[in-house]
C-alpha cells in the first residue's frame, strides 16, 4: 500500500514537471501564429486583427493560466489554425495513432517473443547468429527509409497493401488492418529487436538458475522446464520493456504517419509545431506525456502484482 501511495505521489510530481516543461518550451518558440495562418501575402493590419481575435495580444502568463484552468474544466481551448475546439480535433486523430500503437505492440509480441525464444534455444548455433543479426538490422535501418522501401515493394510493385491512408475500423475492419499493417510493422521492427535481445538474455540467465537445475534433476522434460518455469519468469521483465517502448512507439509514429499519410497525432503534431498552433500542440504533447506516464505507472503496478518479490526500491 505504501508502495502504491509513493508511486502515486511520484506520478503527480512528474505530471506537474511535464506541464511546466511543455509551457516553457512553447513560450520560447519564435514565430507569430497569426502571421503564419495568414501567410506571406497578409497585410500588417490583418495580422493585428487576427492576433486580437485569437487572444494573442494577452500576456503569456495570462494565457498559461487560462490554459491550465481550462484543463481542469476539461476544456483544451481552441486551435488557432483550425478555429475549432482542440478536443474535437483530437477526437478524430487519437483513434488513428492509438490503432497504430496497439497494432505495432501486437506485432512486437507476435513476432518478438517466439523469435526471442528461438534465438535463446538455438544459442550457439548458426541460426541464432543469423537471426540476431537480422533483428539487429531492423533496429539499424532509418525508419522513414524502411517505410519507403515497404511502400515501394508491397504497395507499388506487389500491390498487396495500400500505399497510404487510413480506413476507420467501423467502416471496414480488414481494410483498416491492411492500411495500418505496413506502418505498424515499421514502428514495431525496432521494438522487436529490443524485445528479442532482452528475452534472449533473461532466458539464458534463468536457464542457469538453481530452480532449473532442480527441475532437471527431478526429471522434467526440457519442454516443461522451458514453458513451465523459465518462460514464466523471463516474460515478467518483458512487460516492463513493453511499457518502455510506448514512448518509442509514439515517437516513431510522428515520422511514420507522415510517410504513410495517416491522419494521426504525429502528423498533426509536426504540422502544428510549424504553424505555432500553441493550444493544439500543448494539448497534444501533454496528452502524449500523460499517456506515457500513465502506462508506465500501470506497468509498475502490474509488475508489482505479478512479481511480489520486487520491493519499493525504484
Amino acid at each position, binding site marked *: 500500500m505504501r508502495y502504491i501511495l509513493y508511486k502515486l505521489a511520484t506520478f503527480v510530481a512528474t505530471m506537474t514537471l511535464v506541464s511546466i516543461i511543455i509551457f516553457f518550451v512553447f513560450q520560447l518558440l519564435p514565430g507569430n501564429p497569426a502571421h503564419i495562418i495568414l501567410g506571406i501575402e497578409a497585410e500588417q*493590419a490583418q495580422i493585428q486583427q487576427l492576433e486580437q481575435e485569437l487572444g494573442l495580444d494577452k500576456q503569456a502568463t495570462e494565457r498559461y493560466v487560462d490554459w491550465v484552468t481550462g484543463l481542469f474544466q476539461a476544456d483544451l481551448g481552441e486551435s488557432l489554425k483550425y478555429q475549432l475546439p482542440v478536443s474535437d480535433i483530437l477526437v478524430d486523430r487519437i483513434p488513428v495513432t492509438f490503432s497504430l500503437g496497439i497494432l505495432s505492440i501486437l506485432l512486437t509480441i507476435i513476432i518478438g517473443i517466439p523469435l526471442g525464444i528461438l534465438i535463446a534455444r538455438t544459442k550457439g548455433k548458426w541460426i541464432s547468429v543469423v537471426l540476431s543479426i537480422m533483428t539487429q538490422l531492423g533496429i539499424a535501418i532509418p525508419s522513414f527509409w524502411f517505410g519507403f522501401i515497404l511502400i515501394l515493394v508491397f504497395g507499388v510493385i506487389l500491390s498487396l497493401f*495500400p500505399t497510404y491512408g487510413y480506413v476507420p475500423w467501423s467502416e471496414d475492419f480488414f481494410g483498416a488492418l491492411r492500411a495500418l499493417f505496413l506502418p505498424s510493422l515499421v514502428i514495431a521492427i525496432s521494438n522487436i529487436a529490443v524485445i528479442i535481445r532482452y528475452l534472449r538474455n533473461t532466458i539464458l540467465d534463468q536457464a542457469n538458475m538453481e530452480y532449473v537445475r532442480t527441475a532437471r534433476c527431478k526429471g522434467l522434460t526440457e519442454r516443461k522446464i522451458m514453458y513451465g518455469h523459465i518462460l514464466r519468469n523471463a516474460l515478467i521483465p518483458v512487460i516492463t520493456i513493453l511499457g518502455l517502448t510506448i514512448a518509442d512507439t509514439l515517437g516513431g509514429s510522428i515520422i511514420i504517419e507522415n510517410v504513410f499519410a495517416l491522419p494521426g497525432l504525429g502528423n498533426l503534431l509536426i504540422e502544428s509545431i510549424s504553424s505555432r498552433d500553441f493550444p493544439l500542440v500543448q494539448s497534444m504533447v501533454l496528452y502524449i506525456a500523460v499517456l506515457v506516464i500513465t502506462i508506465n505507472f500501470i506497468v509498475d503496478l502490474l509488475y508489482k502484482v505479478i512479481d511480489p518479490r520486487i520491493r519499493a526500491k525504484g
Partner: protein
Amino acid sequence: MKKKLFIAFLLVFVIAFVLVGCSNSQNEEGKDANAAKPETKEATGSSVVRIAMSTEIDNLDPYKSAATDTGSMMDNVFDGLLDTNPKGELVGAIAKSYDISEDGLTYTFTLNEGVQFHDGSELTSEDVVASYETLAGMNGGEPIVAEFAVIDSIEAPSDYEVIFHLKEKNSAFLAANIVAIVPSDYEEQSSKPIGAGPFKFEAYKVGQELRLVKNENYYNHEKIPQIDEVQFKIMPDQESSVLAMQAGEIDVLPGVTQQGLTQLGDSINTVSGPQNMVQLLALNNDVEPYSDLKVRQAINLAIDKDTIIDTVSEGNGTKLGSNFSPAMEFYYEPGLEDYYATNIEKAKSLLAEAGYNDGFQMELTVPSDYQFHVDTAQVIAEQLSQVGIDVEIKMIEFSTWLEDVYQNEQYDTTIIGFTGKLDPYKILRRYVNDYERNFVNYDNEAYDELIDQALRATDEKDIAAHYKEAQRLLTEDAVSVFISDPDRTIAMSNHLEGLNMYPIQKFNLEDLHYTE
C-alpha cells in the same frame, strides 16, 4: 518445441495472407469503383477522381481561409463575380458583364439570372452586397480583401445589378472580384460551406480528405462537371504521393517533379507551364555590403540562372530578369532575363571596385521547409564561391522566417518564392518604399512614382507601360537576383484530361473528363 514455434510463425503468415487475400478481392471491387475507365463508369454509374494535396485545409470558410492550397480546392465550391481564364484574363462568372465609368470610380456588375446556391436558394444582388460588406470590412473590422478598402459604398438597384462606388481610382480593384460570393444569412460556412460553384461540398475528414460532388444545377450549363465526385486526399509526403499514384491509388497529382514523371512513366497525362511564381535571392538593400549597387550587380553576374534551373528544376523553368513572370504576358517586359549574363570576370572586377578584392562572407537564410529553395541555395553557394563570396547557409523554419526575415527584416540574404497574383500591382507593390512588406528595403522614388501612376491610370496600355518600366528599374538597380519561374506540372492518370494551367493556383475540375 520447434513445432510450436513453427506453428506460431505459420500463424503470422496466415494472418498476413488473409489480410492480403481480403484485400485483393476488395481491391478489385475498389478498382472497379475507382479506376473508372469509361466502360466501368457506366457499370457502376458514378465516377470518382482522387487528387493528392500536400497541405491540410486551414478553414472551409472562404473568408477565414488564407492557405493557397485550401483556396484552390474550395474554389470549385465557390464562384465569384468574375473568374480568370488560363491566360489570366478576367471573364464573367456570377456576373455576366461589368461596366466601368469614365472616371474609373463606379463599377456596375450585371448578374446572371437563375444562379442558385447549393442549398437551392437563388443568388441575388442582396447576397453580393452582404458578401462585399463583410469583405470590405464595412461591418466593422479590417477589410478581408485589402483592395476592397477602396470601396466607398455599394448599392443594388435591382436583384441582378450591383454598383460599387470607389473612393479613388484603383486599377487593382477589378481583379480582386474573383473572390467568393456566399449566401447572405448563412452561418455555417466553416463546417458546411455553401457556394454557387460547379461542385458541392460533401464531406471533410480532418487530415484525410475533402469530398466534393458535382453540382447538377450549375448556372453555367456548358460547365456542368463531368466527374461525379472529387476526393482531395491529404498526403504530406511528396514521394509517398508519387508512389500512391504509381500504385493507381491517386488519379491527379498537382505539382509533380521531373523525377516523379520519369517514375510514373507513360501511365499519365500531364499539363505543365509557368505558374507565375517568382523565385528570388533577396538581398537586404539596407545591409552592408548589399547596399552597394556594384556588389548587387556582381552577385547577379556571378549567378548562372540556367544552371540553377537545369539542376533544381530539371530544366523546367522560365528564366527571369525582374520580379515578374511571362505567365502574365500583357504586363511582362521581355528581354530583362539576360541583362546580367553570367560573367565571372566582370563580377570580380565589380567586387574589386566596391572594395571587396577578397570577397566576403554572405549569410544566406533559407526556409528549411522548402527543399526547392534549400537546393537552390546549395547551387548559389557553389557559384558565388567562384568570385570569392563565401556563402554560409542558415536554415530556419518557415514560421521563424516569416517573423525574423519577412517581418523584422533581420537577414542579409534569403531565398523565397512569391506565388502568382492576377494583378500586377500586387506583384510589384513589394518594392514600393513605404509598403510594409518591402522586405528587401528597395528605395527608389522613380519606382514608387511609376507604381502610383499605374494604379491611377485607366487605359490598359498605359497601365502596362508603367508596370513594364517598373520591372526594368528593378533589374537595372539589381535589387535582388530574380531567378526563375519554376514550371508547375500536373499529372493525371492517362484516362483523364482537361485540367489547365492558370497564372494562379487553380483547378478547373469542371473541365476534367475521361478520355474517349
